[in-house]
């Protein structure tokens, strides 16, 4: 009897049409990537490619040195995700369990203040600093991704931790567990849903980041997938089909990962949103 319970066909149709705005650019990317050079320059982005030109991928693969860029991107992303989850959760744990101390609360606000700092503001001195420390490479980007993630992640973790009753931990302590043992055995598993959220944000942030690696990494052959697209673009922009093969390869890993994990990704991001 209630309107709500019926399937809303009008909404379904409207949304399906709107979904085209997401799908069409992706469709164009795929078809362009498969076209021959002649087909690519005729300006008709929506035509179907024929004959299929698989060579575009091979060419883009070697021109962008894709395996290496992918390796660097994976390296940065994995370390940043692990680093973000571990460091922020440990840090939040240490803060939350010493919250009665004034300096600890100050440390929390100190770190939180970085939420205000836009990257362009600190970027150039960071280039100088990382260079002088020998960190003008993917390792430096990892360190910066972790440092930049710290504020927001600590906020998420402390909010969660402060709602966990301390009694649980007290009992573990009575059994003789050290602080670190308590963290690993009791607290960290409890934090799992929040860790998943932090991991997803951190993955998206690191994997898609363009600004930071492009400025920090000195050696262009150690650049990430998004930055390589730009280098490639300035050199080979007239070969649209090869450019698009390269874009498609740049998008593919994250899209594939997303297709298989979208349920958790959506849940994880939503979780971060309500906190």
């Amino acid at each position: 009897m209630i309107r709500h319970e019926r399937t809303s066909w009008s909404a379904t149709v409207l949304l399906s049409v709107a979904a085209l705005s997401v799908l069409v650019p992706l469709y164009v990317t795929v078809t362009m990537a498969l076209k021959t050079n002649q087909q690519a320059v005729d300006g008709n982005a929506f035509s179907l490619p024929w004959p299929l030109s698989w060579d575009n991928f091979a060419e883009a693969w070697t021109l962008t040195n894709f395996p290496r860029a992918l390796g660097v991107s994976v390296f940065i992303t994995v370390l940043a995700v692990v680093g973000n989850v571990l460091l922020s959760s440990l840090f939040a744990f240490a803060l939350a369990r010493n919250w009665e101390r004034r300096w600890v609360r100050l440390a929390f606000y100190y770190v939180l203040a970085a939420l205000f700092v836009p990257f362009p503001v600190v970027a150039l001195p960071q280039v100088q600093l990382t260079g002088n420390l020998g960190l003008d490479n993917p390792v430096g980007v990892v360190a910066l991704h972790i440092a930049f993630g710290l504020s927001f992640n600590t906020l998420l973790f402390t909010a969660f931790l402060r709602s966990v009753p301390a009694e649980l931990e007290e009992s573990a302590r009575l059994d003789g567990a050290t602080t670190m043992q308590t963290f690993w055995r009791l607290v960290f598993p409890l934090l799992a849903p929040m860790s998943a959220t932090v991991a997803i944000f951190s993955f998206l942030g690191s994997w898609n980041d363009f600004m930071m690696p492009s400025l920090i990494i000195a050696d262009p052959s150690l650049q990430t997938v998004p930055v390589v697209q730009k280098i490639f673009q300035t050199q080979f922009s007239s070969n649209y089909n090869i450019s698009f093969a390269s874009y498609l390869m740049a998008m593919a890993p994250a899209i594939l990962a997303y297709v298989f994990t979208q349920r958790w990704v959506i849940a994880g991001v939503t979780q971060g949103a309500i906190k």
Partner: protein
Amino acid sequence: MPPPLSRRAFLTAAAAGAVGLGLSGCASDDRAIVRFHSSKPESIPYFRELVARYNQEQSAARVVLDTATNLQAAFLRGSPPDVGCLNYNMEMARFMERGVLSDLSDMPEAGRIRPEVQQLADQYATFPGRTNVLPFSVAAESVIYNRAIFDEHGVEVPTTWTGFLAACETFQAAGVAPLYGTFKDNWTLAQGMFDYALGGLIDVPEFFAAITELGTAVGPDSPRSFQRDFLEPMERMRELVPFHQADAASRAYPDGNLAFARGEAAMYLQGPWVFGELAKTDPDLSLGTFPLPMTEDPDDRKVRVNLDLALWIPEGSRQQEAARDFVAYLMRAEQMDDFNAQFLGFGTTTDAAPATDERIQDMQEFYDDGRFYLGPSQLVPLAIPLANHVQSMVLGADLRSTLAGVDADWARLAFRA
């Protein structure tokens, strides 16, 4: 103080190793590593080969070619390359002004440079008592024309402004685009129409010396200014806009190379770097060059030049000796001649061989007579987005107010210098 090399090397290696690249970049011998920066895209394969040859011929140093590092960032990081061989422009001049490049005046190679050419470098900036850069190759730029199209329509190479306009009208009447424009890439406008129009009408070094002197006083009422001195040349520049193909505004440099090589226009305002790109599409294209005539007197014609490649060694290089040795190798007469012959450049030394390629041969007499000027767009500091302003003017922005904006930019830059 710069950090010990070992730590940087270690961390770089750690990063490289971790992504599964191995440690192939690390030398197993104890030769000094000389990082050689040269980013001119067309000549990368050439220098790669040259470096390999050099590494084979001697055993004291190993040169590593670096083609893509952002130089400003590299200096900021405290790890500049050991030898630079790239376009000398305002950006490099600023490095030099701040004393980060070493003095090369005691190298015998410095004495072989033609004085007029060394002076080009001094037009940017000088550092008292030092010769910081050695010009390696000069690129001369003028109007590139398609001989076949000129012949087909019975058009002679024009030597006066009215002659040039008449030629354009002939082509247009015949349904041929006189000029191919790539307005989407603003640098192509700055080095082309903008510079040619100015260089043919004003005394470029004199103008820049004057406004540098004026500094913060440059403005609507100053004796010299962009809005005063550039207005007429810019009006002339705008007269050329309608002679471009219809979609010039949305075409980029690569599009232009493809189209011009396919004979879609009679003329193309580009430098010699484009010849290699054109040959990729049509190696048999018959092309020639002539300076854009801006007055009614053929003797006023001049070609635009730039220090396409110049050599320098940073003060911060830890391999001064090895770097100098490599610079001397590069500057050997036969080496320089070989490069210029391949890349259609002009020699910078008194003993350089003349150009023999038909595509640039016509510019040799201008070059030999010193009838050349440094592109004005090159003499404006990068902090002033000149190419963007040029693009706006070409696309129809008000000339007076745009140039007044450049004046204000200039004065402000002087204020905080």
